[in-house]
């Protein structure tokens, strides 16, 4: 912890370096749990995952067990999953629908609104004991934006929409894929660990510089499948133009002209001839609803969006929600879901899921190699005392636009992280 500075940011000197101790030190992790995760809006789940009163999912968010559910009035709620009596986990199932949740230790039960409504042998508690004082606790703040539900452990945190800043526009681009403005999480979660510091996945998830070197076998797969890929233009590494953007409060994204196919709505041979009319129909609906320009913006660009600190909405070969939490300085848990328009036809849904697996996930043609490279980085970081600095300067000397293979968005992540680690709040 005496290894500060964590980040050297000297734009005039074209210097941007990250201290590798930030990726290995348990004390740094303890500090970031308090100063980063406990003051930022953290993703819990999507409203479509719980639909009817009593529906619930249990999750661990920032080391806290939570119940993500619908209450008796069908509002999405988040409760801390701990009994007010002695602390046991109240709901131990991963998902379901329940009228009430009963703690199995002494039998206290809570209704759909989190109120304590059953206490065996209540008469032995003193007269001052009131059940209404012992409802399930909620995080200090819970809010949602367009179906995405977040919590905040800081009661004084700024409102979610203000926090999301420039990221809102990019969430809206995803929602516009649905004719009714409703995207839904598709069942099946990819739930896996990476033996690496969580911040490495934050970098990796929107670092397009690594695409050629790490994902050559995926690019070969696209080529072998008949996907057209142009030679990169001068100054570019990739087949299509793309930029890196900083969106405020540590959020950022890549914003790329698509070359890899999109379920909404650009057909590639991998989808199969049979799916072509359906993709064209989706495209036509998009144009009719949004106009040519906006439809093209939605369908012909792909964007990897970081909502600081640990949520990615990657709208590429398919749409994935990816969130991750540190389990230790050198280990993280990743959760990933597929997101699709609610009214999607069975054909389009199947294309979406198939397209997802061409790239993403622990059995995809790309993500396993990302996992491998992050674990390789973590192994290399054991030398951090001898080799203390990582270099994050790509694009720094450019005036104006920086490419997706440059690193303004990665620097934006680190600048915000460093600011919070110095004790400042998002502002």
């Amino acid at each position: 912890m005496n290894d500060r500075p964590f980040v050297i940011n000297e734009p005039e000197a074209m210097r941007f370096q990250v201290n590798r101790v930030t990726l290995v030190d348990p004390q740094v992790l303890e500090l970031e749990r308090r100063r980063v995760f406990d003051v930022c809006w953290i993703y819990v789940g999507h409203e479509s995952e719980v639909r009817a009163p009593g529906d619930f999912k249990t999750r661990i968010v920032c080391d806290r067990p939570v119940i993500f559910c619908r209450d008796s009035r069908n509002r999405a709620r988040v409760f801390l999953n701990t009994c007010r009596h002695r602390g046991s986990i109240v709901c131990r199932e991963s998902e379901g629908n329940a009228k009430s949740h009963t703690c199995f230790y002494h039998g206290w039960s809570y209704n759909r609104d989190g109120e304590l409504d059953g206490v065996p042998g209540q008469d032995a508690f003193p007269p001052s004991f009131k059940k209404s004082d012992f409802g399930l606790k909620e995080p200090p703040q819970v809010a949602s934006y367009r179906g995405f539900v977040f919590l905040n452990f800081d009661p004084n945190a700024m409102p979610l929409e203000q926090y999301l800043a420039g990221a809102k526009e990019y969430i809206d681009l995803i929602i516009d894929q649905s004719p009714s403005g409703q995207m839904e999480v598709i069942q099946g979660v990819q739930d896996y660990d990476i033996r690496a510091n969580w911040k490495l996945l934050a970098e990796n998830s929107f670092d397009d510089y690594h695409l050629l070197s790490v994902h050559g076998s995926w690019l070969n797969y696209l080529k072998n499948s008949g996907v057209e890929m142009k030679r990169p233009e001068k100054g570019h590494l990739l087949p299509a133009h793309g930029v890196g953007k900083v969106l405020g409060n540590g959020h950022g994204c890549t914003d790329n002209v698509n070359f890899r196919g999109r379920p909404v709505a650009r057909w590639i041979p991998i989808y199969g001839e049979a799916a072509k009319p359906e993709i064209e129909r989706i495209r036509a609906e998009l144009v009719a609803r949004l106009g040519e320009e906006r439809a093209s913006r939605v369908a012909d660009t792909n964007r990897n969006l970081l909502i600081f600190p640990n949520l990615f909405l990657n709208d590429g070969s398919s749409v994935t929600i990816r969130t991750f939490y540190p389990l230790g300085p050198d280990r993280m848990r990743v959760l990933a879901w597929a997101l699709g328009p609610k009214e999607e036809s069975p054909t389009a849904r199947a294309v979406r899921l198939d397209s997802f697996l061409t790239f993403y996930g622990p059995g995809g043609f790309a993500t396993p190699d990302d996992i491998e490279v992050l674990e390789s980085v973590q192994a290399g970081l054991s030398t951090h005392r001898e080799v203390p600095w990582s270099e994050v300067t790509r694009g720094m000397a450019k005036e104006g636009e920086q490419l997706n293979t440059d690193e303004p968005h990665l620097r934006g992540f680190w600048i915000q992280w460093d600011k919070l680690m110095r004790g400042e709040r998002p502002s």
Partner: protein
Amino acid sequence: MKTKSSSGDAPGKPSAQVTRQQVEDFLYEEAALLDAWRLDDWLTLLTDDAIYNVPSNDRPDADSKDTLFIIADDIRRIRARVTRLKDKSAHAEYPPSRTRRMISNVRIVSRSGLSLRVEANFSVHRFRRNEGIRAYVGHYRYELRVEGSKLKIAKREAIIDAMELGSMGSVSFIL
């Protein structure tokens, strides 16, 4: 094995003549090919419309058309997967893991015409340099088909028992 006829529901039902021992021999042979990374030879065990699935841990019995899986390959992508795994730039498997497969509790659960459904338990250990052992435990659901004098794999699903992939990390090899 002897088969009377190559047509679907011909009298004698070829799949009815397949014994569990033949199925076990076949699955052991498949496991040996995969452990030896003889992936091209493994491909010859598959039918031309073969499917290879690994469902997500929380939806082991779902359909990949409406559920996110870990792997849901048709034959084109199975072949592409093998092509990829032979490429040095498939970094997750370069250098290749060592694997050792234990197949047991082999049961023929139903037979129909040329097809038979088979279930078996697996325990697959994966070893990489300077890494802990990763253990994949679960069961296979196979659809085997009699083609001429041979058994072929029309569908293989590897269902992992763990509640989450967790410390297994990825399924970058053929499970």
